[in-house]
């Protein structure tokens, strides 16, 4: 479904990604784990065309998407939940969800999907008229996820959904990610919480200073000696 081939990405003179290659199959949950600054978010921003890559190729459903502007990618079914949620804080919960459906014109279907989002996240329904900036961190994460689902993505990319949330909420968010995946949405998950990310993922890649150093099934990586030492606390 998604294939990256030898992607290099620079921020000025600093190379953030070095020859990154990996792929995501339809229906999978794939996790990218790694420390701060390993390049996890850079990969998502390269795929979303927020930051240009300097070499390599990105294929989505066998089409090269390197040269496409970000809005075209959303139309094609690629959606991202950005790091730090980035909800539109001066807009209401409802308006945030409408923005998620920006590329769509089927208002009846949009209504249905909104009900579906409210079914996943009942707390958003209670607060639909409220400004998004007044929501708690967990609620904002739910809104950011709901907003991304509103575009009817084929592939949903999530950047650190557990950041800054209590363990209970992290569990809830990960349960919902699993539900979304069972609804048929493929998921590419970037996480520092390696424990959660690996237990949820079908497959995962380990990043270190801009390179992929290991890959395998979530289970296999959880057993891996180096991964246990570096990311799972022994």
């Amino acid at each position: 479904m998604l294939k990256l081939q030898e992607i290099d990405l620079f921020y000025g003179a600093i190379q953030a990604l070095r020859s990154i290659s990996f792929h995501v199959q339809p229906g999978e949950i794939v996790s990218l784990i790694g420390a701060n600054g390993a390049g996890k978010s850079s990969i998502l921003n390269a795929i979303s065309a927020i930051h240009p890559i300097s070499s390599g190729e990105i294929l989505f459903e066998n089409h090269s998407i390197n040269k496409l502007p970000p809005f075209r990618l959303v139309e094609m079914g690629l959606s991202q939940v950005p790091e730090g949620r980035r909800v539109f804080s001066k807009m209401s919960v409802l308006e945030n969800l409408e923005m998620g459906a920006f590329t769509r014109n089927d208002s009846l279907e949009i209504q249905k999907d909104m009900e579906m989002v409210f079914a996943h996240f009942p707390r958003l329904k209670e607060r639909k008229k409220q400004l998004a900036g007044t929501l708690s961190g967990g609620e904002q994460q739910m809104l950011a996820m709901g907003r991304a689902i509103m575009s009817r993505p084929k592939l949903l990319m999530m950047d650190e959904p557990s950041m800054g949330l209590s363990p209970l909420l992290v569990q809830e968010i990960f349960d919902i990610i699993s539900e979304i995946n069972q609804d048929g949405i493929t998921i590419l998950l970037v996480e520092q919480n390696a424990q959660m990310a690996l237990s949820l993922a079908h497959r995962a890649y380990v990043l270190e200073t801009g390179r992929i150093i290991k890959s395998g099934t979530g289970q296999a990586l959880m057993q891996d000696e180096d991964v246990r030492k570096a990311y799972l606390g022994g």
Partner: protein
Amino acid sequence: MSLFLNQLINGLHVGSIYALIALGYTMVYGIVKLINFAHGDIIMVGAYTAVIALATLGWSAPFALLAAIVICVLFGVLIERIAYKPLRSSPRISSLITAIGVSMLLQNAALIIFGAQPQPFPTIVNIAPIRFNSIQISFITLLTVSVSIILMVTLQGFISSSKAGKAMRAASEDYTTAQLMGINVNTTITLTFAIGCALAGIGSFLFCMAYPAVSPTMGSLPGLKAFIAAVLGGIGIIPGAMLGGFVMGVAESLTKAYISTTMSDAVVYGILIIVLLAKPTGLLGKTTSEKV
């Protein structure tokens, strides 16, 4: 009392023009974080267009107004494409300097084409002022204030409920995330410049009806005051620009009547300084602390 009311009405008249122009500054700033110093000169572009349409081509006022709007929008969109878009990811100071450059370019181009001699703006309406006892309201004042209010209410409705308006709000709050929603920010920015310049075109026509002298630098002062109105109300905030415009107009007019005509600008700038000292984000600006 009647002097006060008459001056208040004058203030609302000039204030509504400032407000219309201020909207262009504030909307553009909201989305691309650029003080578009060439915006004032769009007034001049609109004024010359109207003069040519009315005096040279002999068009009727509605068509001349339409021509002014179209040409202003065209100029605004072209300036954005040619001068600002290539600098969008450069440091903000680069585009700011470019904006000043575009302003000088427009003024000097007009100087070469039309000369420095101010040209008279033809009288369009000749309707006697309306009187209530000692208060008199000229038709132009009534027209200007009501047109401005209608435009502002329409704009506010557009921004708050249309899809394109919501996209503008989203892009002005978080440019990158707006792109992740599938919003074509280039289209949104073009639309923002177009709306701002259309309002400036209408503002320029109304301005010329009150001050019928068209010259290459005529846009500088109203442009500067409208910019100050935008900052006074809270730059980037649309109702702020409207409020700022009216506050500026009324303050200016009352100062002229009660204090001194030569002091009016000083008083207006003084108000700006005091407001910004007390409330650095402007009258309607909020210092938001958000949960992350």
